[in-house]
């Protein structure tokens, strides 16, 4: 009497399955070998993430869906998945010193990062609201724990608790919005919502607002940014580097996918929300960062501002805009990882330092690091010919072509304001009286800094591969 059970096609989800099974395996290794094996497990975790990346790269081109349409793999998903994997793997590499200290050695740290990455990949491939929520929860729960991983330090536990409480609140809003959307359309799949939502309606718009509120929290866009500076400052620096990179990429990816695939018929409804959020994020990111002394807090405001810039591309609501978002997030990832490699390297013999004034005179004690950090900061400010300029260029271009002139002008103005505090750091490094010298930079940090620095510096020479790949990825979404 039972209907024939159809086994879902597992091939499109192979990278996620590999990561999940691999995380369980690493957990067993850790359980049997204890915290002493943390270094070994970190190495295996990086290998695992790289293997998932290879699997994604080897996937046949085109769009594949599985699990009853809940899971979709297209060019867009593959591009963002590779970005998220790069971000997570680099974050593990950047953490090797932090995790090397005997009292902090915890083998669960790389395992949790792998599980968070699994959540990110599920999120990027989500094609219905349940998959989106589960991906978010898997990612966020791991992030809450990782924020508090340095559990004997009050700041770290405070960051974890704050993140958890506010994150739970935002998940509640996201779920409430999802339930309203389900109530209005009777389906959770993005394609079904798009088909049922042709005429819009008040319940649907209401649900849309709550869903976007939850999404804005996850990408830390104003007005749901309040947690960001405290969590960034409180969490251990390598964890902050992780937070600023991969989860942001995944959250922006799903933000764009939800907006474009589930609500293509009611673009004006969500466009005004995204325009407001983008303007508010850019403005707050620029002005609030000016008064910061702590470089991690400054990076928090900087990332809020950058999310605002990335959302400009979404606000345009065109293929070109989505392409701009993809290019922006790629370059943002490189700039963030490079900058954090420098921030992690800010330590003296008695421990890490994180004030901007500790960088004073860095150009004299460490000219190489100062040069690359200056390039990163110039790029974050958006000064040509560095990569950050092109990131901003593509989203502004999309906004102008979509007729959003005000948004583009405000974007340019706020990026000028933002340039002030980036230049202030460069001035501190090059022209101020030297502070006591920092400890030598570890190999893996300088390797990450060099790779990202060269990418940022030389992007303008040959931007075609990235821009073309982004264009193909954006096209697969429409």
């Amino acid at each position, binding site marked *: *009497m*039972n*209907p024939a*059970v*159809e086994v*879902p096609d597992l091939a499109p*989800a192979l990278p996620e399955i590999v990561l*999940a099974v691999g995380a*369980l395996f690493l*957990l067993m290794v850790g359980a049997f070998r204890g915290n002493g094996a943390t270094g070994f497990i970190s190495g295996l975790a990086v290998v695992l993430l790289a293997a998932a990346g290879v699997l994604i790269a080897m996937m046949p081109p085109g769009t594949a869906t599985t*699990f*009853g349409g*809940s*899971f979709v793999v297209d060019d867009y998903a593959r591009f963002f998945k590779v970005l998220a994997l790069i971000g997570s793997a680099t974050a593990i590499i950047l953490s090797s010193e932090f995790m090397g200290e005997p009292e902090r050695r*915890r083998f*669960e740290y790389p*395992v*949790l990062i792998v*599980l968070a990455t*699994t*959540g990110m990949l*599920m999120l990027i491939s989500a094609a219905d609201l*349940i*998959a989106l929520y*589960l*991906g978010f*929860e*898997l990612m966020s*729960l*791991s992030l*809450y*724990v990782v924020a*508090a*991983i340095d*559990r004997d330090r009050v700041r770290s*536990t405070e960051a*974890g608790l704050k993140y958890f409480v506010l994150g739970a609140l935002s998940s509640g809003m996201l779920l409430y919005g999802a339930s309203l959307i389900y109530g*209005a*359309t*009777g*389906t959770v*799949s993005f394609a*079904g919502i798009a088909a*049922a939502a042709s005429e819009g309606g008040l319940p649907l718009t209401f649900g849309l607002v709550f869903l976007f509120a939850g999404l804005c929290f996850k990408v830390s866009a104003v007005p749901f940014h309040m947690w960001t500076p405290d969590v960034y400052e409180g969490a251990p620096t390598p964890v902050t580097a992780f937070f600023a990179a991969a989860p942001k990429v995944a959250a922006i990816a799903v933000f764009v996918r939800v907006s474009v695939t589930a609500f293509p018929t009611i673009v004006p409804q969500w466009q005004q929300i995204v325009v407001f959020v983008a303007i508010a994020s850019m403005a707050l990111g620029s002005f609030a960062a000016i008064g910061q002394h702590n470089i991690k807090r400054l990076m928090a405001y900087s990332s809020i501002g950058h999310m605002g810039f990335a959302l400009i591309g979404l606000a345009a609501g065109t293929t070109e805009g989505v392409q701009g978002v993809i290019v922006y997030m790629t370059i943002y990832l490189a700039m963030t990882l490079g900058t954090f490699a420098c921030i992690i390297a800010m330590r003296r013999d008695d421990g890490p330092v994180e004030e901007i004034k500790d960088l004073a005179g860095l150009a004299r004690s460490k000219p190489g690091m100062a040069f690359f950090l200056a390039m990163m900061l110039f790029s974050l400010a958006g000064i040509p010919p560095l990569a950050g300029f092109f990131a901003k260029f593509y989203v502004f271009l999309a906004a102008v072509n979509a007729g959003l002139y005000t948004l583009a002008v405000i974007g340019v103005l706020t990026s000028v304001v933002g340039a002030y505090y980036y230049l202030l750091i460069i001035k501190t490094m090059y022209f101020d009286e030297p502070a006591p010298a920092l400890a030598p930079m570890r190999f893996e940090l300088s390797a990450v800094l060099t790779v990202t620095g060269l990418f940022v510096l030389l992007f303008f020479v040959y931007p075609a591969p990235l821009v073309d790949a982004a264009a193909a990825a954006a096209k697969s979404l429409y």
Partner: protein
Amino acid sequence: MIAAAFFYLFSGICIASAVMVIASRNPVHSVLFLILAFVNAAGLFILMGAEFLALILVVVYVGAVAVLFLFVVMMLDVDFAELRQGFMNYLPVGALVGIVLLCELLLVVGAWAIGPGIVRTVVLPIPPAETVTNTEALGLVLYTRYVYFFQASGLVLLVAMIGAIVLTLRHKPAVKRQNISDQLARKKAAIIEMHDVRPGQGL
């Protein structure tokens, strides 16, 4: 007829024990009344033909949540009499909020109708209760069509478990643990000493 009698029995006890949850002075009694309310609610579910929900309610809420409450109530030294002080002062506001909520609920339930567009978009129709029990119906889709969500939820729970262990478990070196292999490896010669005790002398 019998079903109606059971309905009034279950709902009557359920409401009465719900009142006792907030009325009884002893918090342990409150939790026990809560368990009684859960069991009666499970009875109501069975009357509706939702036997899966009924058993889940007993297993999860009575078996886990209520027992957890009981532990918390017994382990924390909360003075409930003190917490209730000022209860009468807040009663008017509380009653007002309660009445507003009640009115809203009545309005919502009164005007509730399934939208005409929703029936069209239902992905999986509910099988008729005569042919498939609802446990079986859930099982048929849970492990096939929704296996992805099922596994993803499992991963989320795994992360929650890892998180709880990472953040709270501390190995204290001073604590002595049972080591079964050490216990089994002990030899008689190492632990038993034979003495020949003479009468009236002791050791």
